[in-house]
């Protein structure tokens, strides 16, 4: 009987956490993206998200033991994020192209090198992160890591320019009129054979 009570109490806590974090992420999505709701709802969603985050201890200092314990449990149980995949709308993706400059003046183009479709899905997730992150140093480190792997396959290259762009997808009607996916330039990084830091170029 006592054991069942402990199980039931754990389940109540588990469900409370799942619902709370799902609510928080849904509110975040509503506050960020265009939805069918009136624009005034964005402020409400943003405020509700802040209140929920605060009550879940997400505004506590990162070193707070309670916050650390909660974060650990959420990650090991796989419930640290909500479930609004491709919602409320399907976001645009990102594309990273490497421009390889050879000593003899030749220029070739390469994409991040992976061998399987399963890894391709994961690289797409990485590109999404690179495209969306607001941290310039993190973006540069990740682009540099991908550039290094291309460089290893082409050791005779003198310099590599990594160009990141967002993908603009055509609507059905646009596609029928001959429009195809297009790219909007976001960032470019130059890497040379010397160990100098990359030279970023913003849009």
């Amino acid at each position, binding site marked *: 009987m006592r054991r069942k009570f402990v199980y039931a109490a754990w389940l109540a806590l588990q469900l409370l956490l799942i619902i709370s974090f799902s609510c928080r992420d849904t509110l975040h999505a509503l506050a960020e993206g265009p939805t069918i709701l009136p624009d005034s709802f964005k402020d409400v969603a943003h405020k509700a998200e802040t209140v929920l985050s605060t009550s879940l201890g997400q505004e506590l200092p990162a070193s707070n033991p309670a916050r650390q314990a909660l974060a650990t449990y959420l990650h090991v149980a796989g419930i640290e994020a909500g479930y*609004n995949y491709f*919602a409320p709308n399907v976001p645009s993706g990102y594309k990273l192209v490497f421009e390889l400059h050879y000593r003899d003046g030749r220029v070739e183009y390469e994409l991040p090198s*992976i061998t399987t479709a399963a890894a391709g899905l*994961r690289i797409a997730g990485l590109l999404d992160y690179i495209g969306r992150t607001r941290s310039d140093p993190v973006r540069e480190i990740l682009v540099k890591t991908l550039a290094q792997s291309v460089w290893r396959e082409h050791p005779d290259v003198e310099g590599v320019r990594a160009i990141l762009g967002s993908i603009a997808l055509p609507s059905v009607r646009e596609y029928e009129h001959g429009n195809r996916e297009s790219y909007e330039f976001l960032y470019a990084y130059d890497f040379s054979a010397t160990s100098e830091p990359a030279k970023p170029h913003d849009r």
Partner: protein
Amino acid sequence: MQAFRTRLFLFPPETDHWLAILRVGLGFEVMLYSVSLRNDWCYLLSGITRKVAEALLSLESHFVPTLGWFVALAAQLGVREERVIFLAWLGLFASGCALLVGVACRFSAIAAWLLHLCAAKSGGFTSYGMDNFLTIGLFYLMLSPLPDRFSLDWRLRDWQVRDPQLLGFWRRVLQLHLCIIYFFSGLAKCFGSGWWNGSSVWRALIRPPFNVINPEILVTFKYVFPLAGVLVCLLEFGYPIFIWSTRTRKIWLLGVCTMHVAIAVAMGMYLFSLVMIVLNVAAFGTGLFPEQGKKIRLQPETTAA
């Protein structure tokens, strides 16, 4: 009376069929996951990318397991990073195989959960929804009353039948979690206009790297997209309502599984689809179809003549 009902709801007597489906399904999923990433495993999980992901994760918590723990430990013994990463892959693959046949079920479930969690967290930038669902499934599997009677553990040793109410409890946990997942997934989609007019379905199908089907073919089905979008919203949002009723459960389970098969075929997300189908069938699939014994009674009598 209310307390009795609650207890009966949370601890219903249950067989271990659902647990066998979960164990075999997740074992197969872990094997497929390992094999599909074999060639890119070290590329995705070693070097700077791993270190940056782990550093960002440590801002949230220092206690979430990562491959960095094993790498640091092995470095003191003089073992190189690549070798540790490969051993993690090997351990994950072996635990998937062990789960599939049911050898050392509890240990295999814990090993699979730990190694997959480490890989998912160390490859944080390259993780996606499938990793979350696999973590959830393995987390519940390792806590459930293993082994089930279809495992080799059960056959080789003289195990006692587990508490049927505890089996029922863990199945209930999985059922309730799935209801929340689909409810919020459907709710968020309902707020986007693209799911009502079909443009989100179109965008999901042509967005790289999910563009498995040629858009020239897809565009001929343009009138189906709005219906497909509304159906997805209905299936997901209505899941926590219609999956419980015995009258609608079969339709809803079949609909959700069909949706996941379509995602696998049309978007190439076969690992994601498989884990969702396994979780759904384990949670709500058993007991839907008549037992073999009942079918036998329908056979014509042969003794009288």
